């Protein structure tokens, strides 16, 4: 197999606009922290960000920050600090890398934006534990550190069906956040303002969906690795006009590739699906490795997790609940299997890669026999690789590459 070729990413011209957007976002946050207004809320990725935005908060997303620690491999230095402080190497390495960075008084933001010396001090932290317990523990650490309130939504997991009762329960919890959030923000809640933010957020999410869906064609214009990077604005700038505008620009570029028959991977032979978290510190290496194998990872659960299900906004709280319960991570095994089968068909995939992330059990969906069931039901081969989101101590380069290459050799055999 010709894996030794020197290969590189094919960058998107839109990346420059993305960098500007991200810079603007982080600088605004930094200014808010320095000036003390607007108030700053830290929010988990599935948290009720739109509610916070509607109340005028500047919103910071620790998971995005942790992913930066992973991608820059700063996590190698910061995780051990949190481990030494009593946070086990077996728990979420987003948590340990982020808290470790704080303890070292570091942030990867300083490298890109020298005027930013620290993460923005929160006035409140708001989580949704739909994804895991760790996010709650993580936010609670900062709550103690900054002596600020930590508010949360407890969402059921392993759900088989989204029932009105389930939605009502979640919606009620989100509604209950309003009074304390109003008090901290010093501002009255306005339901129409919330509807407006949500409507923008849904439009942005819809546009992101269109970008990802462009990958149905062969060759696919985008790779998982491109998508994981270009997801940035969808994560941190949701509910803004800029996001919508940005994904319009990106979509145009992606559609240009489609029109020219240009793939993200030259000579695309195989199309794979990535299930589980990215291995942030190896994102680029793996991207190039797959290009060398003339294989594209055309779809992933991860990048699709920022497409939020939405209904009508008559009761926006109910709709926020729908977004939360509509996420893959909240479902039971059967629902997950159905989703993956659909995705395989939609994107015409030849194989599934399951990433078993050592420190992220809830987002490692290989652990209850799903790959075997999926393979049996679809006849599509699966491969499980062992690694981690941020902790490269849990990753073996040789073993992973051999496993992936062997998987491709199997696909070559037909």
């Amino acid at each position: 197999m010709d894996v030794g070729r020197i290969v590189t990413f094919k960058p998107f011209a839109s990346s420059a606009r993305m960098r500007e957007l991200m810079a603007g976002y982080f600088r605004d946050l930094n200014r808010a922290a320095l000036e003390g207004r607007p108030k700053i809320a830290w929010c988990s990725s599935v948290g009720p960000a739109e509610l916070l935005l509607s109340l005028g908060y500047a919103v910071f997303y620790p998971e995005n920050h942790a992913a930066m620690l992973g991608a820059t491999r700063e996590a190698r230095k910061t995780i051990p600090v949190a481990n030494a402080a009593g946070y086990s190497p077996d728990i979420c390495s987003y948590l340990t890398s982020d808290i470790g960075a704080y303890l070292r008084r570091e942030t990867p933001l300083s490298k890109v934006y020298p005027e930013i010396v620290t993460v923005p001090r929160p006035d409140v932290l708001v989580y949704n534990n739909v994804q895991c317990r760790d996010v709650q523990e993580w936010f609670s650490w900062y709550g103690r550190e900054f002596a600020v309130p930590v508010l949360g939504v407890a969402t059921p997991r392993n759900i088989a069906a989204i029932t009105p009762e389930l939605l009502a329960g979640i919606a009620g919890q989100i509604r209950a956040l309003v009074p304390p959030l109003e008090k901290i923000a010093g501002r009255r809640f306005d339901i129409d303002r919330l509807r407006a933010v949500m409507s923008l957020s849904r439009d942005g999410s819809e546009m992101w969906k269109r970008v990802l869906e462009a990958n149905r064609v062969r060759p696919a214009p985008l790779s998982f690795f491109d998508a994981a990077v270009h997801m940035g604005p969808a994560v941190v700038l949701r509910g803004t006009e800029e996001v919508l505008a940005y994904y319009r620009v990106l979509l145009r570029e992606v559609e240009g590739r489609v029109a020219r028959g240009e793939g993200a991977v030259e000579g695309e032979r195989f199309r794979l699906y990535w299930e589980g978290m990215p291995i942030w510190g190896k994102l680029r290496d793996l991207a190039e490795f797959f290009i060398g194998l003339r294989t594209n990872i055309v779809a992933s659960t991860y990048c699709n997790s920022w497409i939020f299900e939405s209904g009508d906004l008559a009761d926006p709280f109910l709709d926020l609940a729908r977004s939360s319960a509509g996420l893959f991570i909240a479902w039971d095994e059967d629902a997950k299997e159905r989703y993956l089968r659909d995705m395989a068909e939609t994107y015409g995939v030849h194989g599934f890669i399951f990433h078993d992330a050592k420190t992220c059990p809830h987002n490692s969906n290989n652990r209850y026999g799903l790959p075997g069931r999926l393979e049996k039901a679809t006849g599509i081969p699966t491969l499980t690789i062992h690694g981690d989101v941020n902790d490269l101590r849990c990753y073996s380069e040789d073993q992973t590459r051999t496993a992936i290459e062997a998987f491709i050799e199997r696909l070559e055999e037909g």
Partner: protein
Amino acid sequence: MPEHRPPGGSRIFAGLDIGSSAVKVVLLDGDGSFAGHAVRVLGSDLRHAAAAALDDAAGEAGLKRPSFDGLVATGFGRSAWTEASAAKTEISCHAKGSYHDVRRPHTLIDIGGQDCKIIRIDGQGRRMGFRMNRKCAAGTGAFLEEAALRLRVGLETFDDLARSSTRDVEIGSYCTVFAAAEILHLIRRGVEMPDIVKGLFGSIVQRTMEMDLLEGDVVLTGGVAAHHPFLIRMFETRLGRPVIVPPRAQFTGALGAAIFALEAWSGRHA
């Protein structure tokens, strides 16, 4: 075309398996018949060990120089042998070599120096799936080496020691370091050396059985199987049926690589 041919002037194809603790070579002639083989300890100079093993095998095949009509490299060091006409993973090569030996559907267990792999192979020799051990060396050759060091006995005595054991002890840890602690504990309790060694073999068998359901015929390859017949007996006892060990169990990957080299040549000259 190589200059120096063995009697009969047939073509020679090489499979080079650069594993984590040894380099193995198998040579086949143009009919796919065995022509030579060699093994060298890897040491710290991977290319040197590979060249020496190729030299040895060429000598056995009656070649004056190690020059081949095709060479496929495999194993963790496969990309280091840049002279190879192709590189293939050890998964594919083991499956190829093993199917060549048994010619029916089976589950292959290869216990190497640093890893253990289980490959399901169908009636046409196609791989239906594979599993590799996780990051710890427990259940691999390195685990036995580490234990031999701790016990201060030569690894080559392990098989006889285990065979002479009179009682069962269990070494249950997942992790090599924890297993070492268990060994110390057994020593403190006055457990005899043969029983400890048999316990170590049992631990390898157990770790392997935890990786896969091991359906159908089971073939065992790799250095650990080749050098420890008693461990194979223990496997059979646990499985409740015989396992197949090919004649050159340590060379299955190299054999598969040599077959790939031969097939590539035949494909080009068909």
